[in-house]
């Protein structure tokens, strides 16, 4: 059952068989995959089955308890909460996924170039990364969001731009060891180009590092979206995301309106957990050492 569900996921299907098997053996990872798939279905297919108006507010229907008409009640401006969960989930998942991937792509390029070039190029590029790590992301977020409206694409770019640093360090470290591998040296000794070395040897061999980093980046990005929304820098109405829903719901914590807090809170926790578990499973699966 679990192996099958893992197989259904496209990405896994491309991995060599033992990898897939090793991933499938990690029960948490498979559960994580299942959760992610379910949430994607919930957010993208769910609205077809349970349709609600998420564009207009309805001030006559605010703060209603869960009922047959509104399975999870309504929020402070009259949106159906279950529908909102799907609607906001689209943004959270999309932004998380895209920002995580963007950060990984930038980090991978930066890190592999720095690591491969070495010398002063590496020194300069890595000082930039150090400086990036040393500047609080919050500061960048505040400044950038003061300049431009963070729509969904904007948010993706901003979050991608503040979170590529860690993957870039990882990939650089990986590149540093890979470029000294004998097959790269052999290629250099017979006159192969740098581009070929990076494209044919270094990147493919760091793919495990990169894929694992990407998974964790996605998890972190979803959390970051939530954090950013808490600070009031998230997407704007009529759009929303789970973080925005949660922080808006926080004010209702003492009013007993649990349905405004628990569902988005759980959704965030579950999805972030799930991506972490997948990342963990992938790392285990790629890691040939320490088995058995």
């Amino acid at each position, binding site marked *: 059952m679990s192996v099958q569900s893992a197989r259904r996921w496209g990405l896994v299907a491309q991995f060599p068989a033992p990898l897939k098997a090793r991933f499938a053996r990690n029960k948490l990872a498979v559960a994580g995959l299942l959760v992610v798939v379910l949430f994607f279905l919930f957010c993208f297919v769910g609205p077809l089955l349970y349709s609600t108006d998420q564009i207009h507010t309805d001030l006559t229907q605010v703060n209603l308890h869960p009922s047959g008409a509104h399975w999870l009640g309504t929020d402070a401006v009259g949106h159906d909460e279950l529908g909102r969960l799907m609607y906001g989930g689209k943004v959270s998942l999309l932004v998380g996924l895209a920002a995580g991937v963007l950060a990984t792509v930038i980090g991978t390029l930066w890190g592999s170039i720095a690591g491969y070039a070495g010398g002063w190029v590496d020194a300069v590029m890595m000082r930039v990364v*150090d400086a990036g790590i040393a500047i609080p992301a919050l500061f960048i977020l505040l400044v950038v969001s003061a300049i431009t409206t963070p729509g969904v694409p904007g948010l993706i770019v901003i979050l991608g731009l503040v979170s590529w640093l860690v993957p870039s360090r990882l990939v650089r470290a990986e590149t540093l060891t890979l470029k000294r591998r004998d097959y790269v040296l052999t290629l250099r000794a017979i006159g192969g180009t740098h581009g070929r070395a990076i494209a044919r040897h270094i990147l493919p061999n760091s793919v495990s590092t990169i894929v694992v980093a990407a998974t964790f980046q996605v998890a972190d990005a979803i959390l970051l979206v939530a954090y950013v929304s808490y600070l009031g820098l998230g997407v704007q109405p009529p759009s929303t995301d789970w*973080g925005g829903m949660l922080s808006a719901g926080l004010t209702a914590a003492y009013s007993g309106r649990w349905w405004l807090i628990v569902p988005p809170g759980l959704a965030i926790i579950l999805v972030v957990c799930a991506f972490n578990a997948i990342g963990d499973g992938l790392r285990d699966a790629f890691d040939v050492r320490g088995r058995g």
Partner: protein
Amino acid sequence: MDTLLYLTRRIAQALVVILIVTVVVFGLLHALPGGPARGILGPQATPQQITLFNHDQGLDRPLPVQYLYYLRQLLHGDLGTSYTLNEAVSRLIEQRLPKTLVLTVLSAVLGLVLAIPLGMWQAVRRNKPADYVITTLSFVAYSTPVYFLGLVLVLVFTQVLRWFPSQAPQGDTVAQVFADPVALVLPVVTGAASMVAVFSRYMRAATLENLSEDYVRTARAGGSRQRAILFKHVFRNSLTPVIAMLGYYVPVLFGGALVVEQLFNYPGMGLLFWGAAQSSDYPVLLGCVLVISVATVVGSLLADVVQRVVDPRVKGGLA
């Protein structure tokens, strides 16, 4: 000698990093449209007052001049004066930083003290139920937004159970803060939660890796018990990579401190920073970012140095 050379290099690098930070931060701040004056003086301010403000703060000069001026001030240890708080930035930091340090250091210590044994234990019980349970818990701890976790803790422990006060200690000095240890519990726990999650994962991975090292087999062949091998050998070998991560964790700790300080009414650096961002208080913002980046750089420097102490191999390695 070697160490000295290494340290000089690292410090030089750190200075370069901080210089880059000041340029970036300064540039970004001044890229903001509108300038701070209207925000600081409020809607009622007259255009004359705004001009006067800009002149007083030197904001009417060309940007490079302002930057050089700022650098010169910095070299004299002067971080400028807050636009809104009627204090020198250095004084503000002097007042707030120790409070935040108390919180973050306690959180970090608590986090590590819990995470390290947990991670080792998980590695030993790999893929057993205990490992799964702790892994799941640490994923949950990591995945819960800090503000949500804090809210839940406040709700449960201060409003329902009433075990702890809802506010962190309200004293202004470190000594006063420590005088009220009960009030420190919730803020410290909130700050430590994600730390435990992250570092127990690191520790688990490092321990697993070390357990498959040849030296473990050698020790076992010499008749050492599992427990002795874990504590005498694996522990120290696994700790080094974890220490290396600590340096880069400083900014994350500060981010967490911001939320904790908000939740528990504890005016420290995080709130100073947040308040300054809200009120366009550039000198304070610059000061805070500078402090955080220096802390990060110093943190990773310290982590390196500690690593050199713990791991004799590192000497001469990376430099």
